[in-house]
């Protein structure tokens, strides 16, 4: 009967790229062959039809239908071309931002199923309000406007959530919150206004001088001396993130203050109220599912889209990350498979306006899954099928003690503080290479803990929720169905056998989706090898190298010291060393603040140095500073690039005469240039801005432009965050012996990281002084 009553109907669907939406589209296409679908999606850059094809019809949910239609008169593609239409529209804009043709298409629809929502439990308050609360209101208003004249108005089915009932114990009936006993009389319009105002307030707060200074300081701490543009971009990014976080916090706080677990449930509750008040005579029905999880049977057992609520928690537990999770063992965790929800929505749509205003789709009242039962099943399953760590060792899952939320939170808080302190400490140390990756590892650990904390905060409430959602309306519709419909559109929550569902359907699917390691044996990280092959592909055009700590373990101060002490005797050397050591803190501070300023200041020391002598000594210095302290693997890499026909470029703040000996390795050397006085001495002044920070990116860009190369085909090797602009500018960045901050950035962005070291036999000298000459040699 359902299929027949929907035959010839035109059904518009919002949120079809989501979990429920995709399942709904699939089910309607497969089980209601007579209907036509109009999918309202945000077109974005690619356009709505393309998004429908790529993000919906290409999902593996459609595999079953695709194979069923294979070798029939009309295959899947042809059927979709006939029955599926894309409408470019945005639920967070008044009138949905529809075009004329889009309006016409929507106006022609008989049924509108609204399943779009900001489902993230931690969305910022204002966007939750715009999408969840105002979305259905806008849709209802638009439909009313389009059909103001006609008598036959389309039927709106809005998908909500059981959790609109809020934090309560006991029976939760299929009623509007305002009709229940716990209503506190909230005005949804006032909430909308205040949420919008809040966005403005938070934005304003983020722009106060104090706040901006704080963001700037944090950006500097994260990036170091990366140059003004990079710092500016990072500062703005931090500000944006802060605004988002504030709004998320505000949403959670507001929801909690009026009795909802989070902004999602809160805004959904208000939405029901708002639609009810503004719908006029538009026929509207609301379907409230509880926690939607993987499919019981349709389109195939275990089908799931996206990483959903329980999955991250389950995977964190299986990976040994989350050792405990709050919850009441005898509490009910109200899970419902997605295909049951979809079937219920279709049944409500088929029944039309005479269906009950609210239908809850939940399992708690008729076929409850106890929290302890879920936990036992999860533990048993992962004991039998353990996840393996990177070493290939199985991870033993811990026993669950059902601790209170406070205790778990305190544990995680403590761990987080500890890890954060360690991270701060590491970042403040001048570490490189392997040590620097400790910090990256700590950061990963911190993010894991943070995520676990979020789960506990967000989902903990759900596991502690002891509300029982009644499904009287749902069962009434179920009982009215004939046997064929009951078979095709099963939405009876009592049909689920939880042990079977959790162990044989849900967990295998979750594990597959999370792509966790389920087999023993060491994982071979061929990522570096792959990236390296990519960097050394013949298609690359230019390889740019930084000098200090990328090619050699030395710096401008060392080369200066070497040259300066070359002709000094014992006592003079002593004086030089003491003087330099005394100045060291000042120099270090300057270098941290601005590399360019430091170089200019430092190079003043070359003033009055005779050019001829320096050039002669620089040749000898090549052996003692450059070759002796070079990284053989780095030099090898430069030559590999040359052998592949790539142009090699050295970009360094060192003085040109100090790197002259590296000439045979590079097609182009961009270094600091010092002017020479007519009397054959150095002036101590640079002829142009030394290539540091963002100037490096610019220099490379200019080189590429001048020679017809593309930055996307460039490889850049550098060691510190001050080179970030250069690394970001090229298509193939490589972090060499990265300092702590760069190591973290490289890890996050998936850049190739090389650990290059001096030759094991390299001389180890405490001070970079030239070997002492005897009286005769001097």
């Amino acid at each position, binding site marked *: 009967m359902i299929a027949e009553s929907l035959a010839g109907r035109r059904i518009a669907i919002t949120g079809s790229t989501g979990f429920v939406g995709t399942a709904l589209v699939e089910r309607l296409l497969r089980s209601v062959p007579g209907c036509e679908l109009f999918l309202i999606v945000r077109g974005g850059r690619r356009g709505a039809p393309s998004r429908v094809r790529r993000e919906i019809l290409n999902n593996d949910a459609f595999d079953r239908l695709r194979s069923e239609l294979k070798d029939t008169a009309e295959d899947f593609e042809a059927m979709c071309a006939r029955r599926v239409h894309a409408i470019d529209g945005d639920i967070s804009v008044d009138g949905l931002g529809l075009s004329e043709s889009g309006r016409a298409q929507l106006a022609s629809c008989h049924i509108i199923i609204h399943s779009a929502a900001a489902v993230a439990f931690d969305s910022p308050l204002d966007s939750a309000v715009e999408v969840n609360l105002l979305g259905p209101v806008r849709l209802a208003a638009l439909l009313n406007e389009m059909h103001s004249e006609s008598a036959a108005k389309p039927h709106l089915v809005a998908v909500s959530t059981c959790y609109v009932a809020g934090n309560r114990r006991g029976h939760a009936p299929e009623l509007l919150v305002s009709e229940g006993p716990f209503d506190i009389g909230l005005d949804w319009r006032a909430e909308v206004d205040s949420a919008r105002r809040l966005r403005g307030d938070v934005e304003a707060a983020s722009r106060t001088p104090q706040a901006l200074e704080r963001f700037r300081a944090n950006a500097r701490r994260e990036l170091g001396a990366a140059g003004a543009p990079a710092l500016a971009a990072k500062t703005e990014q931090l500000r944006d993130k802060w605004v988002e976080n504030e709004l998320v916090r505000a949403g959670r706080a507001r929801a909690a203050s009026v009795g909802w677990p989070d902004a999602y449930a809160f805004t959904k509750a208000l939405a029901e109220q708002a639609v009810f008040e503004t719908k006029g005579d538009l026929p509207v029905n609301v379907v409230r599912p509880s926690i939607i999880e993987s499919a019981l049977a349709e389109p195939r057992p275990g089908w799931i889209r996206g990483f959903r609520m329980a999955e991250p928690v389950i995977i964190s537990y299986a990976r040994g990350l989350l050792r405990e999770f709050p919850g009441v063992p005898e509490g009910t965790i109200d899970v419902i498979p997605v295909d049951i929800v979809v079937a219920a929505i279709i049944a409500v749509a088929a029944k039309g306006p005479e269906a009950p205003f609210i239908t809850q789709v939940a399992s708690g009242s008729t076929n409850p899954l106890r929290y302890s039962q879920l936990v036992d099943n999860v533990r048993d399953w992962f004991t039998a099928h353990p996840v393996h760590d990177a070493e290939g060792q199985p991870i033993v899952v811990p026993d669950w003690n059902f601790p209170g939320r406070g205790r778990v939170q305190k544990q995680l808080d403590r761990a987080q503080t500890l890890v954060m302190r360690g991270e701060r400490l590491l970042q403040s140390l001048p570490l490189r290479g392997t040590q620097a990756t400790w910090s990256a590892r700590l950061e990963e650990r911190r993010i894991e803990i943070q995520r676990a904390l979020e789960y506990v905060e967000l989902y903990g409430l759900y596991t502690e929720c002891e509300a029982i959602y009644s499904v009287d309306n749902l069962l009434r519709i179920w009982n009215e169905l004939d046997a064929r419909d009951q078979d095709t559109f099963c939405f009876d929550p009592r049909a689920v056998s939880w042990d079977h569902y959790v162990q044989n359907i849900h967990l295998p699917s979750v594990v597959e989706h999370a792509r966790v390691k389920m087999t023993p044996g060491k994982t071979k990280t061929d990522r570096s090898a792959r990236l390296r092959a990519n960097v050394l592909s013949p298609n690359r055009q230019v390889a740019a190298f930084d000098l200090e700590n990328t090619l050699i373990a030395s710096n401008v101060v060392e080369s200066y010291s070497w040259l300066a002490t070359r002709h000094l005797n014992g006592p003079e050397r002593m004086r030089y060393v003491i003087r330099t050591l005394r100045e060291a803190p000042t120099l270090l501070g300057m270098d941290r603040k601005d590399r360019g300023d430091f170089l200019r200041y430092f190079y003043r020391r070359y003033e009055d140095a005779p050019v001829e002598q320096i050039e002669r000594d620089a040749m000898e210095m090549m052996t003692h500073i450059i070759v002796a302290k070079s990284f053989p693997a780095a*030099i090898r890499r430069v030559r590999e690039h040359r052998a592949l026909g790539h142009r090699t470029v050295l970009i360094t703040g060192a003085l040109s005469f100090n790197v002259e000996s590296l000439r045979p390795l590079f097609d182009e050397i961009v270094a600091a240039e010092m002017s020479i006085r007519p009397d054959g001495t150095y002036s101590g002044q640079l002829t142009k801005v030394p290539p540091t920070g963002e100037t490096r990116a610019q220099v490379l860009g200019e080189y590429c432009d001048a020679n017809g190369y593309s930055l996307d085909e460039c490889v850049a090797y550098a060691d510190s965050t001050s080179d970030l602009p250069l690394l970001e500018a090229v298509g193939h960045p490589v972090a060499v012996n990265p300092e702590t901050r760069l190591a973290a950035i490289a890890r996050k962005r998936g850049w190739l990281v090389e650990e290059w070291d001096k030759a*094991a036999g390299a001389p180890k000298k405490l001070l970079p002084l030239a070997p002492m000459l005897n009286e*005769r040699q001097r």
Partner: protein
Amino acid sequence: MPRPGFVLEVDRSTPPILFWRGENFSLEKLPADRSRVIYAPEPHKVIDDIDGAINHALLNPVDMDPLPTLLVPGMKLTIAFDDISLPLPKMTRPDIRQRIIEAVLDMAAEAGVDDVHIIAALALHRRMTEDELRHQLGDRIYDAFAPRGMLYQHDAEDPDNLALLGETAHGEEVEINKRAAESDLLVYVNINLVAMDGGWKSTATGLASYRSLRHHHNTHTMQNSRSFMDAHKSELHKSNWRMGEVMRKHGPKIFQIETTVNNDTFPKPFDFLAKREWEWNGRDRAKFVAAKAGLNRTPPRMARNIFHGIEAPHNMTSIQCGEVEAVHRLTTENVWKQQLVEVQGQTDILTMGIPFICPYNVNSIMNPILVMCTGLGYFFNLYRGKPLVREGGVVIMTHPTTNEFHPVHHPSYIDFFEQVLTETTVPHELEARFEKQFAQDDWYRHLYRTSYAYHGVHPFYMWYWGSHGLQHCGKVIIVGGDAPTVHRLGFTPASTLNDALEIASDVVGRSPTITHLHTPPLMVADVK
């Protein structure tokens, strides 16, 4: 009267035998009744009046007129001398070369010759530092010639300063230093540490270019030099002599000065290292215990400095000069007198302690490739007649063989270890696949010419040097070697000598015969 070389049959009363292990050593007990130890002859007596002997030789050359008669005003005179690879360890000052060159310069000055160049015959070795040149030639020569650019080092990669003299009947190009080639007289000052040195090899190798050297520094030549210490059976020798023929026809007049030194290798307090163990007295034993305990606690870097600081008491035992081939015949005889030890029959296992030094790591690091070359190249080839170890037998070396290279001296060795040995350790294969690329590399060339690096192709030559040994032996084991590094070389690491003997039993059975080459001091086994 110094005692001749000696082969000790090990029995149950034989004390443990000294094995070198790089910058350290150990005493190892060899299995009784099937082991023997070969000791070098004791050091021959040094000439009392060295300066007198030099003068006498210069005035009484072999098959040539006395040196003063060859010197005329306005002539171009070039003096070439052996570089830092000889002798080992370095000699206490004054070096023989200083004494000889000073004598030659005195005669030249007397004859009114003022166009004199002094050239270090580096071939493809690293350039010497000022300190090293001053050690070899003395401050007087250095200060008089170096600042005026008349004392310098041969540059095998300077196209403007090479001269092609012609080709041998085998098509081998002879290209040497241009100044030497265009001189009216080339005086070559040699130190003949082993029988391979000297003769035409002094000029045809020491002053040659890569183009010329590649004809005899290759797998084919080395595998057909059995051994390269024995001129009659050495393809290396033959090739150099063919080139000598070309030099004789088209090259400069050569006045060859060859010297031999005795094998008095270690000064006090290290003199016990050259003694036969059963003759160690209480003091020797105490010195050994103290040295070992000290070295075990010394960082390798510091131990290296201590050992490379050793200046050997060895000195001149003979000097002969004149026509190259005639001189070299005399020199070789004198070398044999000092070094030859008669040994009856081959052995299943040859053991050798690899010391801290070889010709290519003076003031530098004995890297893994040099360990291979010292063991399978030099020590394996210290034979005349037949190799000490039977074909298919086992060579056991003792050395720490760490993955350590001198970045300035051996840059191409590092890449050879990382890029070539990871692909293959078969000499002719790596020669065919990789030699050219390393030999013609601009960066190595730059470092060879302007810094202190061995030529890019040099690690290949080291590998070829060991190719006869590689081909001959069934297995090579390095006791105490760093396992990954030894594996990279294609050898087997073992932690103790006993483990090594166990490992060797797969190849040579449970009771093999063992021969230990007790060197340094240097010797050559005359295997009957």
